C-alpha cells in the first residue's frame, strides 16, 4: 500500500532552465495532506537558509530549488521503543524511521524510493533532501540528506550536502568521542582524496598551499598528546588558513585547513577551502 501520494512539484527558487542550473530538490515525508502548507513553509525556510550560507549566497544565480509535495497517510516518523522512543509507527510514504541501526537520532527513509520520485519529478536533480515532519532531532546523510523539523536540524542537511554533493571530508578529530576513542591516535600516512584534509604538512606542496599566508605558522597547531583530542584554543585569528592537526576521525597525523568549519561542527561557516571547492564545482552552473 502506498501510504500517501505524490502531489506535484513546484520550483521555489528559479534562476534558469534546469539543464543549465544546479538543482536541489526537497521532498516531504510524514506530512498529511492537511499539513502540506506547513511543508511549503518548511521548504521555503530551508531554501532561504541554504542560500544565506556562504558560498551559496554568492552562487544564487547557479541554483534552482524544487519542492516535491508527497503526502503521507499519517504524520511523523517511526520512533521505535528499543531506542527509548515513543513507539509511534505512522504510515508514511517513504517509511522514515528513527533508531536506524539502533542509533536513536539516525533518521533514515527508503532512499531508493525517494530517488525514484526525485528522478521522475526533476530529471536534472543534483542533490536530494528529505524533510521529515517530526519534532524529534535527527537526520542522516548518503544519497539523500534527511532532516527532521527539530530546531537546528537543517544544519544536519547542509553538513551532509557537503559530503554528498561536494565530496568534503569530516574535519572532526574523533570517532565516537574524544573520551571514548580507541585506536584513533594517529592517522595513516596515506593521503586522503578529499580536498579539505591532508597528511602533507609541507607548506610548499600541501593541498591548499595557495591559501596559506607566509606569516602563518605551518603546522599551525600540533597536538601534544595524540592519545586525546587537542584541547588548545586556536592560536590564530578566526578565518586563518593553515594546517591544524586533527581531522578525519584521528587526533594526530592529519590536518584541516581552519580551526573550525561546518564540516567539523554544526552551526559554523564552511571554511575557505570547503568554500573554494563548492565554488569550483558550481561554476559551470553560473549564467554565462
Amino acid at each position: 500500500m502506498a501510504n500517501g501520494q505524490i502531489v506535484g512539484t513546484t520550483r521555489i527558487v528559479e534562476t534558469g532552465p534546469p539543464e543549465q542550473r544546479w538543482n536541489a530538490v526537497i521532498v516531504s515525508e510524514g506530512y498529511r495532506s492537511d499539513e502540506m502548507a506547513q511543508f511549503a513553509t518548511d521548504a521555503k525556510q530551508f531554501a532561504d537558509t541554504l542560500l544565506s550560507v556562504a558560498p551559496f549566497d554568492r552562487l544564487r544565480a547557479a541554483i534552482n530549488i524544487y519542492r516535491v509535495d508527497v503526502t503521507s497517510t499519517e504524520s511523523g516518523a517511526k520512533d521505535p521503543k528499543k531506542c527509548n522512543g515513543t513507539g509511534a509507527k505512522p504510515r508514511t510514504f517513504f517509511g522514515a524511521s528513527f533508531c536506524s541501526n539502533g542509533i536513536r537520532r539516525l533518521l533514515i527513509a527508503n532512499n531508493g524510493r525517494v530517488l525514484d520520485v526525485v528522478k521522475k519529478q526533476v530529471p536534472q536533480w543534483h542533490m536530494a533532501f528529505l524533510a521529515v515532519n517530526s519534532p524529534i532531532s535527527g537526520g542522516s546523510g548518503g544519497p539523500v540528506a534527511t532532516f527532521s523539523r527539530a530546531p537546528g536540524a537543517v544544519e544536519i542537511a547542509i553538513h551532509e550536502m557537503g559530503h554528498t554533493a561536494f565530496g568534503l571530508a569530516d574535519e572532526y578529530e574523533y570517532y565516537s568521542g574524544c573520551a571514548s576513542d580507541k585506536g584513533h591516535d594517529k592517522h595513516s600516512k596515506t593521503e586522503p582524496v578529499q580536498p579539505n584534509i591532508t597528511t602533507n604538512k609541507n607548506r610548499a606542496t600541501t593541498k591548499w598551499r595557495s591559501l596559506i599566508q607566509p606569516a602563518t605558522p605551518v603546522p599551525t597547531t600540533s597536538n601534544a598528546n595524540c592519545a586525546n583530542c587537542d584541547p588548545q584554543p586556536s592560536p590564530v585569528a578566526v578565518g586563518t588558513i593553515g594546517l591544524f592537526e586533527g581531522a578525519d576521525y584521528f587526533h594526530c597525523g592529519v590536518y584541516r585547513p581552519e580551526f573550525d568549519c561546518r564540516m567539523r561542527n554544526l552551526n559554523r561557516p564552511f571554511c575557505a577551502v570547503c568554500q573554494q571547492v563548492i565554488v569550483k564545482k558550481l561554476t559551470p552552473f553560473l549564467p554565462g
Partner: protein
Amino acid sequence: MAASKSARKSRRKSKSRKAAKKTSRAKSRKTPAQAKAIETSLGLNKAVRLTFSYDGDNVKLVSQQRTEMTVPASDTVKGYGKYKGFWAELKSGSDKTLYRTVMHNPTKNDAEVFPESPGEVISRQPAPKRKGVFVVVVPDTDKGEEVILCRSAPETKGPTRGIRALASEPAEEILRLKLKK
C-alpha cells in the same frame, strides 16, 4: 570489469598525466566563463546518471540514464595513484581519465550521529547493517567509454578494523562498467 595489468596501468598513468597537464594549463589561463565554454564543449550539458546499489562489500549497477543536464566541474584528474578514499572516473577507450568526482564513501558501514542541542558535537557509530543506493553523474561525451569506481579497503585488524570510513590504504578499482551508447 577486471582489474588492469601493470603495463596497461603504466601507459594509462602516463596518458592521464599528459591529459591532466593539458587541461590544467588550459583552465588556469581561463576566466570562469571561458572555463565554462570549455566544459560545455566537453559535453558537460549532457550527462549519464548511474545508480548503484550496495549491500555489505558488494556494489552493483542498477541503472544508467542519459539526461540533458550540466555536470559539476571535475576534480583534478591527476595524481590519485596513492590516495585513499572513494571516487568515480569517466574513462576514454584508451583508459584516459576524462572526468573524476571525489565522493564521501557512499558505501559506509557507519553513520554520523548529530547532537540534539548546539554546543554538543557530531560523532560516529558503527552501522553494520547499512545498505542502499548511491548515484554517480558523469558527462555524456563521445570519448567516454567506461566508468570506474575506486575505494579503499577497510582495515583487517586493530580497533578500526572493518570500518570503511577508517580505511588507511590507497584506493583500488572495485568496479568497471561500459557505458551504453
